[in-house]
């Protein structure tokens, strides 16, 4: 046995006479790589592209007032269903409203709903997942409730919840958040269960660290990466659910332009005036694509097992 020979060339030698450890093995030099945000984006083009596209959409939503828009709710019955032109870039709908202005302002609803749902459901799901992962008796109860909620498709659950209240952006956010919470809490619970078996968590327990501190210092920082990735997917899914809810009339009220209800209103005319449906659909697709690209990029960058780079 090799280790035996190395450890003790002559059989029972006193421990301190055995070859001593060299004073200090060298510490690995720091890896030379592009530093900072730019270096990170250079190495992760998916994140850069998705992020840029999403940033553009956010700018459009924030600065909608200055992007040559008119009042998106102003009716002009005399100028109904005009084709796209220099005056009406995306044409007008059957009530004579400017589709361009409606699409630009519609970005606000989609992005607010997407971000709000992503943040709220991540925060609530994180809390539920932490409780579930750390308190064993609560785990069974919480997870059976989550299983029950997950057995209903999120869209149907959101529609059911919207049927109980009146349509408003706030209620849409609440309905979609409730529908998305089980996915996050399951994810967090899984991460917590695997982290609490990690030797460094057990060492912290042995070192007398209190449970709240263990959660804060050792568990929480290591759940951020998977939650961030999950949040982007939830953001994309929330935008689509919002559009679906608005499309079937269960979402934002007609007075507030959103991509979903613009498409719903243009639906009756889509064979003769396809642009009313086309433009909001393109914006929705681009935004969801941007968020999904960002999510894929973050997943690859944050999860070492998915790393493709050397």
């Amino acid at each position, binding site marked *: *046995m090799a280790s*035996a020979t*190395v450890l003790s060339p002559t059989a029972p030698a006193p421990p301190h006479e055995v070859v001593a*450890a*060299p004073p200090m093995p060298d510490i690995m030099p720091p890896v030379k790589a592009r530093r900072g945000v730019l270096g990170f984006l250079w190495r992760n083009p998916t994140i850069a592209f998705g992020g840029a596209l999403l940033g553009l959409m956010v700018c459009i939503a924030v600065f909608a007032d200055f992007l040559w828009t008119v009042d998106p709710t102003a009716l002009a019955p005399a100028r109904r269903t005009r084709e796209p032109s220099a005056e009406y870039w995306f044409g007008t709908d059957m009530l004579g409203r400017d589709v361009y202005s409606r699409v630009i302002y519609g970005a606000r609803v989609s992005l607010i709903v997407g971000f709000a749902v992503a943040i709220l459901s991540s925060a609530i799901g994180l809390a539920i997942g932490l409780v579930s992962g750390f308190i064993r008796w609560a785990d069974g109860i919480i997870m059976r409730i989550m299983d029950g909620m997950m057995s209903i498709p999120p869209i149907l659950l959101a529609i059911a919840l919207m049927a109980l209240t009146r349509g408003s952006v706030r209620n849409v956010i609440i309905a979609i958040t409730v529908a998305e919470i089980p996915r996050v809490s399951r994810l967090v619970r899984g991460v917590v269960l695997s982290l609490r078996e990690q030797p460094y968590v057990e060492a912290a327990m042995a070192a007398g660290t209190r449970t709240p501190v263990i959660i804060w210092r050792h568990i929480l920082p290591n759940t951020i990466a998977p939650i961030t990735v999950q949040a982007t997917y939830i953001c994309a899914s929330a935008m689509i659910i919002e559009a679906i809810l608005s499309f079937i009339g269960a979402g934002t009220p007609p007075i507030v332009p959103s991509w979903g209800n613009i498409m719903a209103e243009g639906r009756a005319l889509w064979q003769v005036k396809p642009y009313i449906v086309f433009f909001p659909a393109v914006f929705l697709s681009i935004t969801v694509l941007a968020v999904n690209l960002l999510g894929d990029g973050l997943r690859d960058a944050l999860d070492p097992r998915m790393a493709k780079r050397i």
Partner: protein
Amino acid sequence: MNAPMTARTRPLLEVRDLKKHFAIRGGFLGGVTGHVYAVDGVSFHIDRGETLALVGESGCGKSTVGKAILKLFEITAGEVVLDGRRIDNLSAGRLRPMRRRVQVVFQDPFSSLNPRMRVRDILAEPIRNFGLAKSRAELEERVASLMDKVRLPRDAVDRWPHEFSGGQRQRIGIARALAAEPELIICDEAVSALDVSVKAQIINLLQDLQQELGLALLFISHDLAIVEHMTHRVAVMYLGKIVEVAPKRELFAAPKHPYTEALLSAVPVPMPGAQRERIILKGDVPSPINPPKGCRFHTRCPYAFDRCRAEEPPLRQTEAGHWAACHLHDLPAGENPLAGAKGASVLAA
């Protein structure tokens, strides 16, 4: 040095009839469908400054014993007594000050350090928890002296764990264990994941520290060469039970349990052409979910007879300080196949 129990001191740690059964949950409502008898009645003691090795093959429950002493979970039955005081039934708040006295070094140097904490914070955590430093300057001084103790440069405290090699990380793990100023360190396969030369360095470091600080070590391992090199006494575990405890020299020279005998014969001999009589055990280790009746080893024991299948042998003293759980020692001397010494030093070979 055998470190036998003397009347002068009581043992630092005593484990009495420790049991840990893990419930197997399954079925529609998650009811208990069975148990894994991971540790099923284990007793031993460790004196101050002594090294006890706990050896056995994978899955025999040796790591579970270590974690039970650290109270990383509730034990099923038995007592863990630290310096005359039971610690297994203490509440979390009462246990916390006692935790300082028993620390742990884990096997995997990569998962035993939080990747998001700098070395300084990793070492400071136990010092802060137990209030061992009164000021910031004293904390810094303690962290620096820990780095000295494990022969790492002081300025490495600002680095992240991923910047170190496996052996260096294991040194950090040892430093973290020392930070609490413990009396006992549980080394759970602490060198198994390291390559041979680094392994030797870490072993020597542990031995130096033991002499310097008077530490007791519970050395959980499956590497008999290292066990023979560095421990005072050895406890052999099989399927959740201790089958033999003896001072190192006696155990390696004259094993008193057929399992120990087989284990020793399986160690490769580092001498070309050397002959050694190997005892090949038949079959696999039985499942700890459904351990065999009678002696747990009877399904694989080359000497098993009827009594072994019916009656479980207790751990009894066969010679001074040498304990074994085997019915063969009740046979007349001439009929006991273990009477002749069949073991051999692993290192001397």
